[in-house]
């Protein structure tokens, strides 16, 4: 095991009542990298993400973040440690303004100290958010809401950002722009996890990729070395 790992998951099993969603999942994230998790609907990608931040309690297995076990911690503590989840479906605070949404991102006592610097930074990354800072979040377009969700996650000054299906339902131009921003965020040393259904895009953007099928990891490797057809086969389980 490399000592450079920011997150290490070993033998993770997660159940929803009688249904097992994750089967013995092990995964390592190297600090400063972009890692993609590819899989079809229902393959367990989102469950893996929500388990990392504590929205699910694993039945067994360990999750270590920066060398400390975090499995079973309540979600509001994960962000304090430096893990931010950009949740599936964006989940921006619809009735709060863009500015207020971003301020909620800096809710933890640590993040509050640098909130003005971070706000400037987020507005730099996504100038459109600044233009719309006083608008209610539900008046934004889908792409802008996604930028807001990412910006909100950045406000907490995370070491690790988990992006769950950020390109879902967005126009290709917007997706491209968002991916460009993510690359820039990554260049600042923030580790990024991309959960995607789109095989091609995730292989292109990531340093390392995992493919999930029916709650298990079925394929992994350096993104550049993975063959697209091989990944597609693993994706569909054929």
């Amino acid at each position, binding site marked *: 095991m490399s000592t450079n790992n920011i997150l290490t998951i070993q033998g993770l099993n997660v159940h929803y009542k009688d249904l097992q969603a994750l089967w013995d999942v092990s995964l390592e994230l190297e600090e400063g990298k972009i890692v993609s998790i590819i899989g079809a609907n229902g393959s367990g990608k989102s469950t893996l993400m929500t388990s990392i*931040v504590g*929205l699910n309690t694993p039945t067994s297995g360990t999750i270590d973040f920066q060398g400390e076990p975090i499995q079973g911690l*309540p*979600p*509001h*503590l*994960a*962000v*304090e440690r430096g893990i*931010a*989840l950009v*949740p599936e479906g964006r*989940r*921006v*605070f*619809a*009735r*709060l303004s863009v500015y*207020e*949404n971003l*301020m*909620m*991102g800096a*809710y*933890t006592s640590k*993040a*509050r100290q640098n909130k003005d610097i971070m706000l400037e930074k987020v507005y730099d990354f996504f100038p459109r958010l600044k233009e719309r800072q006083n608008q209610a979040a539900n008046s934004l377009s889908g792409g802008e809401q996604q930028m807001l969700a990412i910006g*909100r996650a950045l406000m*907490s000054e995370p070491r690790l950002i988990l992006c769950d299906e950020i390109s879902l339902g967005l126009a290709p131009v917007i997706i491209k722009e968002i991916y460009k921003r993510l690359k820039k965020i990554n260049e600042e040393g923030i580790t990024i996890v991309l959960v995607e259904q789109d095989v091609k895009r995730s292989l292109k953007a990531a340093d390392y990729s995992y493919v999930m099928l029916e709650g298990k990891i079925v394929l992994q490797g350096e993104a550049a070395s993975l063959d697209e057809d091989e990944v597609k086969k693993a994706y569909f389980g054929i």
Partner: protein
Amino acid sequence: MESLAQPILNGILLGGLYAIIALGMTTMFGIVKLVNLAHGDLMILSGYFSLAIIAQFDINPFWSLIGIIPIMFVIGFVIQKYLLNRVLGSEMEPPLLVAFGLSIIIQNLLLLVFTPDAQSLKSSISVQTIKLTEYLNVPLIYLVDFLIGCSVIFLLSLFFNKTYIGRAIRSASDDVIAAQLMGVDTKNIFAIAMGIAMITAAIAGVLVGTTFSFYPHTGAQYLLIAFGVVIIGGLGSMKGVLLGGIILAEAQLLGAHFTSPGYQQLIGYLVLLIVLRIRPQGFFGQAH
């Protein structure tokens, strides 16, 4: 015309009192989708706390708030954290039943301790009036009710809009999971919100006690008023609560003026039904 001016004026002022009666309930509904059936009883409980403090220290009822506000905050916090939070979930019925049980317990405790006699909080301003014209008088206590009601609504909106905790409460009411992801301990935030709702109930209880008389069972009557205000104004809306209060109070007082005081309640709720027919989400409520 002059005979109409008095009920209209009184209606506006009384509307401010109705608004603060409903304020805590609309807050909790907006945040946790919780219909606090014990809201009226907790308000009357504050009235009895004030009564007990006045009996002990012989002070003006408004001064007793210094003691009652923290007590009611703690009561609200504890009720939410250790009782209602445990039954919060996808269904609405369990918290409704717990609140209903709480209502019965409070009523009977008050009956036991304070007897069923009518009580009121005596203050010199309860009986004073300001003479505007020959025909038009402002009962001073109504004016105080209105001003305090408006100030509390104003301060509460300021709190919700400008503070971290206020924003956390609003964000949790939008999306609980997302709020947790921001680092908000939502269970704790709900308890704080209930504590704040109970502060407004404490102030409402003392105002009601100085304006009218109350009994251990009066809570239900004010719960009904709160329901009316919240439905007319729009569930969970701060702006709506003042408008709802004024509309309900005007309907009652003008109704009483044109028919007889006996029909006051009936007409108030007829107007409520009409509002429900025309605008079911209330004036400032969001349509679903």
